[in-house]
């Protein structure tokens, strides 16, 4: 065919086909999304410190293992309350002429998704220790240690944030471990990662591929209670550890704890739902229950797991007791 023997016509045809397709599948949709989406009304731009933290996040390639997207499928429900929408990313702009805007949605989930990590894990002490040595808080983690974001000092100065590290991870280091500005910025960025709620009246998309609940699990009474051990692993173990012994100087043990074993269930539920900051020798506990939207059944399962594990031997509590306390907490917090 003549056409195939003329290199100009041939290459021009291939080039044009590719350009046309490129326009329709990449350039036009990208421009349309860029122009027609606005951040949600409650969106706050990153502060200077958070922005520096984001730069550090980008610089260290954290996106290689951590996504920031909640897909509209049931399995992603643990990473956010609703599926992500275009408006969630509309506030992300190019930082400068040299670098691209980083939505940091990612393609690999070797580690957990971070869309909502500011809400799920807001503890400063936990985050700093976790950056210094992930295995100090999560023994089986494969995350790199970011030791170079910390300084070693003989004596603490004013405004220094010290990180208490369990001795087996110090390798004989006697000096104090102090978080650098970059480490603090990075944690500030992580703490800023919270999924925004939709404006009132807007209904979030549904999560697809719901897990089918088989008749068996709904009919049997014993199976209707959630699994306390699983919930403990997901919500509590990163600080209090799987063995319930906590970390010295950072997170208190639950094994043999008077609150866990005691009779003041109201205090216990309050701590889970609202957090705790009564003991200066330990880090502040965040409102784990409220942040993670734990139901009365789930809180009960966690409490009963804690009261009966690691040698703890206290009586189980009932869902009714716990539900009453949680209802009261919600009532008082709504009135504020």
């Amino acid at each position, binding site marked *: 065919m003549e056409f195939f023997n003329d*290199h100009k016509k041939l290459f021009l045809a291939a080039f044009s086909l590719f350009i046309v*397709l490129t326009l329709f*599948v990449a350039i036009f949709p*990208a421009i349309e*999304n860029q122009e027609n989406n606005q951040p949600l009304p409650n969106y706050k731009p990153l502060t200077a410190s958070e922005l520096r933290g984001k730069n550090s996040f*980008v610089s*260290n390639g954290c996106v290689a293992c951590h996504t920031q997207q909640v*897909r509209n499928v049931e399995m992603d429900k643990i990473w956010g309350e609703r599926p992500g929408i275009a408006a969630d990313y509309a506030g992300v702009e190019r930082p400068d002429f040299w*670098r691209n805007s980083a939505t940091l949605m990612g393609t690999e989930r070797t580690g957990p998704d971070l869309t909502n990590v500011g809400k799920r894990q807001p503890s400063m002490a936990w985050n700093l220790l976790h950056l210094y040595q992930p295995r100090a808080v999560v023994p089986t983690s494969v995350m*790199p240690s970011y030791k170079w974001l910390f300084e070693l000092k003989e004596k603490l100065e004013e405004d220094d944030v010290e990180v208490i590290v369990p001795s087996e991870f110090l390798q004989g280091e006697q000096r104090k471990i102090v978080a650098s500005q970059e480490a603090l910025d990075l944690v500030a960025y992580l703490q800023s990662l919270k999924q925004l709620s939709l404006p009132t009246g807007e209904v979030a998309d549904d999560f697809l591929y719901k897990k089918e609940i088989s008749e068996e699990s709904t009919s049997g009474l014993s199976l209707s209670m959630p699994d306390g051990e699983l919930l403990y692993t997901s919500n509590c173990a990163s600080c209090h550890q799987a063995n319930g012994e906590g970390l010295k100087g950072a997170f208190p043990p639950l094994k043999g704890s008077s609150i866990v074993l005691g009779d003041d269930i109201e205090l216990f539920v309050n701590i889970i739902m609202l957090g705790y900051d009564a003991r200066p020798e330990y880090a502040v506990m965040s409102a784990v229950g409220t942040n993670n939207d734990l139901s009365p059944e789930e809180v009960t399962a966690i409490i009963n797991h804690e009261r009966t594990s690691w040698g703890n031997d206290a009586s189980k509590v009932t869902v009714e007791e716990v539900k009453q306390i949680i209802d009261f907490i919600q009532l008082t917090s709504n009135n504020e």
Partner: protein
Amino acid sequence: MENVQLLSEWGILITLVLISIPVLTAALIVIAKTKKLIADLRHKREFEAFQEYARGLDAKELELLQKRKEELAFKLQGNELKGRQEPRDSRGMLGEISEAEELRFIPKKQREEQSLYVSKDLAKLILWYLGSSVIWLIFGTTVGEYLGIKFVAPDIDHESWLSFGRLRPVHTNSVFWGWASLAMIGLGYYVVPRVSNAPIVSLKKGYHTLVLINLSVLLGSLSLMAGINNGGGEYREYVWPIMALFGVGVIISIINFIQTIATRTTKEVYVSNWYIVSAMMFVLVIAFVAYWPTWQNGLGETIVQGYYMHQGVGMWFMLFCLGLMYFFLPHQLNKPIYSYSLGVLAFWTQILFYTLIGTHHFIFSAIPWWLQTVAIVGSAGMVIPVVAGTTNFMLTFKGNWYKLRGSYTLPFYLVGIVFYFTGSLQGTAEAFRYTNLIWHFTDFTVAHSHLTMYGIITFMLWGFIYTLVPRLTGKEAPQMSIGVHFWLALIGLMFYTGPLMFGSTLRGLMWMDGTPFIETVEFMAPFWLWRAVGGSLMWFSHILFGYNFYLMVFKKVREKVPQSATEILEAREKLVTEQLSSQL
């Protein structure tokens, strides 16, 4: 209702199968016994009939039988066809005569011969390209190997420059832009002029591209390790000024190639050149769209990212390597490609469908639903070019399979073609919404990208390099170490990808099941160990490849002790003249 539910339980099904095995076996035995009984009975009747017949034979029949018995007794003596002359090979047809008793553990394969068609200067340029690509392969996979080890031993170092997040893009980018791209362009400098039957227009331009791309990968790797990157889209981690060096390099060589094609002395533009020139045009478009520094806010970045990362793979590496394959495969098999038209069909359908599939990396994300659907449809459409391409290559092989045994390069081609089929179709399967649900975000994607970028692209490039370099230098690597390279790489790839695919499928199912995240990390540990083992085999094979390449280029050739009649006479004549001249 109850029964239906029971039958859908795996435990019940397996039990049923187990029970049915002995029952079925017993039934089979009974049937066999009965059949034998009937057969025995029939045989007995037949034998009785024969006895009747034998008794009744007459004299004439007996004579005929006797005669036939004598005829059947005839035997050859073994020397009936012997000639009366002494054996001679007057046309010089016999070579490589070896004794039948010799123990041959490793079969000797066909040797490559030096090409007559390539100038010394062009050969040098191509060797520079291939040489630097080999260095990037060894560098890039050393980094990859180290990353694999980090999954098993995360505390192996605490240096910022060597931390996982910074090194990962160093690995991917250096094998992409350093190894595969340089090797492809270098081979392109051989193929484009050869199929155009015209000399390359400018050698100098070739060197410009070489320097620019090497510089780009060097600066890119250093900047990534120093923490300077573009914001985290895969294969788009170099900042644009560094990637621009690469782009300018490609522009210079594409001009060179098109000018060479314009001066061709053949009438048609051979299909290899379609693929090669298009790949270069498209990679420029892709890089331009993805790196233009004044747009892509918000979700725009992600849409372009999906487009960029997949076109980079399919429109640059795949298209270019297919172009090279359309030249090297017929060349190695010494026969034309099975169907030129299939090659043309694959070319246009590849452009049509591949361009659409980018966003299948962001299925279920906030990207518009219609765009995700288009990507899935495009992924299904990829079946057409992949099947067309594979069929074409396989049918070119047809009737020449015996050559596979006698060649040390063809096994590389075959592995490349087989992975082209399986790897590409696996990509299609991964794009469907349900499979995406299980596999997305897991290491399945990592396994897939190694099956394709390694199984297809790298194996093809190795085949081409082992084919071409001996033709440029006249030297070959030992067949033994090429064989070891091949098997280590192939077995390593299997160890790398198999466990990773298996483990990550289960991990995806655990996620769907709501297992605590950290337990799924712990679960992957043994599979990550297997990955490191496979990776080590692959890495070792690259060291061998580097050594082979070194031998093909720099091996000192010992003066050969003359063996054939021609050589002996030549050598003797030389000696005699030397003797005469020294006497004078």
